[in-house]
Each structure stands twice: as C-alpha cells, then as structure tokens.
C-alpha cells in the first residue's frame, strides 16, 4: 500500500465526471434508481469512483450511495452516470409502464402483508 492509494482528489472530481454538473438526461436517474457493479476491474478508477463501485456489489439506490458516501444527490448522480456510461455499473428499472406498475404494486402489497 503506497500513500497514493489514500490520496483523494488527485484527479479533481469535476474532471472525473467530464466537467458535467448534471447526469445525461437520457439516463433518467432518480433518487430511487438502483445500480449494480459489473464484473470489470475498477483498480484504474479514482478513489471517489471506486467507493461507489465498492458499495454496489449488491443493488443500491442513488439515495443509499449518496448517504453512505456523504455526497449530495446531484454529485452522486453525476458520478454514477459516468460509471454507467463506461459500463462499470448497470441500472435497474426506471419509469414503469402502468400495467407493470400494477403487478409490481400488488407484489409490494403482498410483501408488506407478510412482514
């Protein structure tokens, strides 16, 4: 372990996220959107990005990543969006069609009644 491994901000975050201040509109990221780490080697990523990957070996929402890493929602979204774009993360379902939503809500109801 070299001291470089712990170095934060070696590459400023705004460069890591390509100078973006918001996620790409088409990625449609919401506070409840869930993402999952893909089997790619994250060792070349900067510390901020690796922290996100480390959390995402199970499905995590933008809200959870933001809370655990103490980043604002928007900065979390921008970072997650770049990792999605580069294939490090995969994304769960976003906006649902009404018929699917009905089925999903029924599952939520059944699940709540069981807990």
């Amino acid at each position, binding site marked *: 372990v070299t001291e470089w491994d712990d170095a934060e901000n070696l590459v400023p975050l705004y460069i890591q996220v390509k100078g973006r*201040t*918001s996620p790409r509109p088409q990625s449609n990221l*919401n*506070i*409840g*959107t*869930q993402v*999952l780490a893909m089997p790619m080697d994250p060792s070349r990523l900067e510390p901020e990005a690796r922290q996100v990957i480390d959390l995402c070996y199970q*499905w995590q*929402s933008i*809200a*959870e990543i*933001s*809370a*655990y890493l*103490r980043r*604002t*929602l*928007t*900065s979390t979204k921008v970072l997650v969006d770049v990792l999605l774009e580069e294939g490090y993360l995969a994304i*769960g*379902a*976003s*906006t*649902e069609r*009404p*018929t699917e*939503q*009905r*089925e*999903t*809500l*029924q*599952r*939520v*109801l059944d*699940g*709540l*009644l069981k*807990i």
Partner: protein
Amino acid sequence: LQRSVKIVIAGGFGTGKTTLVGSVSEIPPLTTEESLTSASVGVDDVAGVESKASTTVALDFGRITIAADLVLYLFGTPGQDRFWFIWDELSRGAAGAIVLVDTRRLETSFAAVDYFESRGIPFIAAVNRFFGECPYTEPEIREALDLGAEVPLVWCDARERESSKQALVRLVRHALSRMPAAA
C-alpha cells in the same frame, strides 16, 4: 429486472415522518443531502440569499426488501416545505404518499395535501396518535384539511411498526384501486 418502488412520507415539520420510516425500515433511517446550488431549479425562496453554497437540505429514508428483485424505499420529505425541487424528485414515479397529520397543528400538513392532490399522486392522510388524544372527529379533520371524499384517512402511531405497516398497506391498496384494471 431489478425494480424499486418509492413511497413518499410527507407532512409538516415534526409530524413524525422519520419516526414512521424508522419503525418499518429494515435499516436505520439514512440521511442524504442535496445542496441548493446543485439543484437545477429556480427555487425563488433562495433568490438573493448570499451564502447559497452552504445551503443544503437533508432528507431521511429507509428501505423494505420485498423480494430479491424488488425493494420499497420510503422517503421522508424535508422538514421545510419550501424545498419543492426535492418533493418533485421524490414524487416522480412514486407509487403514492402518506401525509402525516399532527392534530395539534393541522395546518402544517396543508402544503403536502395540496401538493399530491394537484399532481394526481395517490395519497392517504394518517393522523399520528403519538401526540395523544385527538380532539377532533374524522369529519372535522377531513374538513380542516379539505380532503376529498376518495382520500382515505387512517389513525396510526408512527412509533409502532405494525401501525406504520398498516398505513403503508392502506396506501398501496388505495393506489391499486386508482389504477385501471389490468388489460
């Protein structure tokens, strides 16, 4: 495909939102923050505020895993009603909302009722019994909050897991009843 469902827990400051989230969540409530400067919305309340950079809004949330591929997230709205951009973020695609009501201060829940009503988001009102004896009858509360006849009103104790769960169940049933029947 992995899915998540959002339910918004709203109500005025101190109505027990975080308490309700905490009583049913499988994890202790987490807190996330948004900074006002990074929100791409013209929030007029902050126009002219000098130290915008330090202004953040915090919100608490919890989760209930329904199945390996389905998670329910409960998002509490920020204590301050004026941060509407966060309400929009929470409400987009939400299955519905619970508006918590403190009968000592009914007026603190007006904004939440208006918000969900005007956007057509299914919601129920839940009177939080935590605050002791309720001096009002259901019709009185309905009238005071200007609740439509179709909006369910339930009594709950946000500290009790079972009671909070029943409020969620009532909301999900209500949301389902408002959807068109499956084709």
